[in-house]
């Protein structure tokens, strides 16, 4: 007698709790995706460089999925408390659709991780970056984009100027190691965009060359992006449990 009531109450309590968590996580997911999209200006030159725009797709889907999760969780709480079969069915079906969308976003974000990895960027840079005269800004698009990135963020290479020393590259094929241990853009420049001290830059004297890599400059948005994938995954696992519980509850109540 009291037992089944307790069972029902416990199940209802659990489902309400589960929905509350889903709602809060939905808001958090929306916030994180908005952060990624808003801070994308740091990623922009890099994305131009990697020619990758799918990264935004996952973030945009994440924003809407987060809001949907929040709204649906409220619907779920109402449906559980009222124990209405219709409402619960609507809730379950809408949740499944949201689940599918979040799945797509998650998988896209996880797939894109690879193209934001430092090793990948390094390989791309070494293969694609060619000559570029700092003064007259010649060279192909890829080179220009990297030059802009290096000038804006005061950085050199992906991990540092030693990238050009440790690996062969398209740049090395056309520029001798003695004259250009690393590209001129890695030198600290004066107002006229000439190296402050060319010998100092070639020697690698601290203060005359840029010693940090460009990957550090973009690691913030990259980490947030990684969060979109893994946080989304965690939300989906939790939602799975709540949905199973809701289905069990639905099959148990009478309308």
């Amino acid at each position, binding site marked *: *007698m009291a*037992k*089944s*009531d307790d*069972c*029902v109450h416990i199940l209802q309590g659990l489902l309400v709790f589960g929905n509350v968590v889903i709602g809060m996580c939905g808001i958090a997911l929306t916030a994180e995706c908005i952060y990624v999209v808003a801070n994308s200006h740091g990623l922009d030159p890099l994305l131009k460089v990697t020619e990758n725009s799918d990264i935004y797709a996952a973030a945009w889907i994440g924003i809407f999925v987060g809001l949907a999760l929040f709204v649906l969780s409220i619907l779920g709480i109402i449906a559980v408390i009222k*124990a209405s079969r219709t409402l619960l069915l609507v809730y*379950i079906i809408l949740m*499944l659709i949201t*689940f*599918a969308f979040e*799945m797509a976003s*998650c*998988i896209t974000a*996880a*797939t894109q*991780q*690879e193209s934001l*990895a430092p*090793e*990948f960027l*390094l*390989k791309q840079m*070494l*293969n694609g970056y060619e000559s570029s005269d700092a003064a007259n800004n010649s060279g192909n698009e890829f080179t220009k984009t990297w030059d802009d990135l290096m000038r804006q963020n005061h950085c050199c290479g992906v991990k540092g*100027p*030693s990238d050009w*020393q*440790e*690996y*062969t*590259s398209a740049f*090395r094929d056309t520029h*001798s*190691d*003695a*004259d250009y241990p690393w590209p001129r853009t890695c030198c600290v420049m004066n107002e006229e965009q000439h190296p402050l*001290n060319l*010998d100092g830059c*070639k*020697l*690698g*004297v*601290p203060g005359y*060359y840029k010693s940090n890599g460009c990957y550090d400059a973009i690691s913030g948005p990259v980490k947030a992006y990684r969060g979109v*994938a893994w946080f989304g*995954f965690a939300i*989906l*696992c939790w939602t*799975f449990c709540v*949905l*199973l519980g809701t*289905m*069990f509850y*639905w*099959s*148990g*109540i*009478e*309308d």
Partner: protein
Amino acid sequence: MWADGDHRRVPGDKEPQQHSRPGHRGARTMLPLLLLLLPAARGTVVTVGPEPALTKDPQLEGVTTASTFVLDQPRCVFQNYSDAVIWLVVTNDKDAFYNNATPGTPETAFQNFPDKVSAYMTLNVTLPSYPCPRPAGDITVLRVGSETSCAKDMSRPTCNGPLPGPGPYWVKFLALNDSGPVAETSWSMPIMLRTAQPASNISTGSGYRDGMIAITTILSILFAILLAALLAMLVFCGSESCGSSTFSKAESVSVRRYNTHHVYDQPCARL
């Protein structure tokens, strides 16, 4: 701001001809040496100062590259040889070099290194280029391998051209005056240059791929389970409550209680 020994302080290649006479050790006039305050020097070449070493202070990013390396200038080392010209000897076989070699000849030409000769001499300066003591805060280095313009120019045998391979190389400073070699440092430790790996060696993180596969697999399974559960739920429990035994016991009292929570008409007909 600093003295980079790239630039020779003496005008080019006319200098070496002063040393075109080979200097024999031993039975030669020791007059220039006697004028110096080194009684021990009797025509033998004096070993002075610390051996050449790669620059450690300040830390330079380019201390070794694929074809150049950076040495500390030999300050306060050749103080007693003010009339000598200080040469840098670079070799890949330190036992094969003799101090009686004449700079500026094909035997010590940079362009013939390493195919025809095993050592070359370059970076000749006179003592005023290495003032002693070293001014504090100045960076006094020599960049070996910085002159690319004369690397293939046979008319510049004392070119400080880029090194052809990763090494190892040994270097020493040798002071020559009119009568031949007068002082030298010992050979440096072997200097290895950097070699560049092919860019294709970079492994583009298989860890990411594993993560992606895991996420995709797990999510697909979860989604499939949910769809299956939904189907089962609709098919088996379509219009009637199939779990009624879970939530209601056989006792009528509990059924009545249950009624208060749900809209429930015609209970008797259902039961």
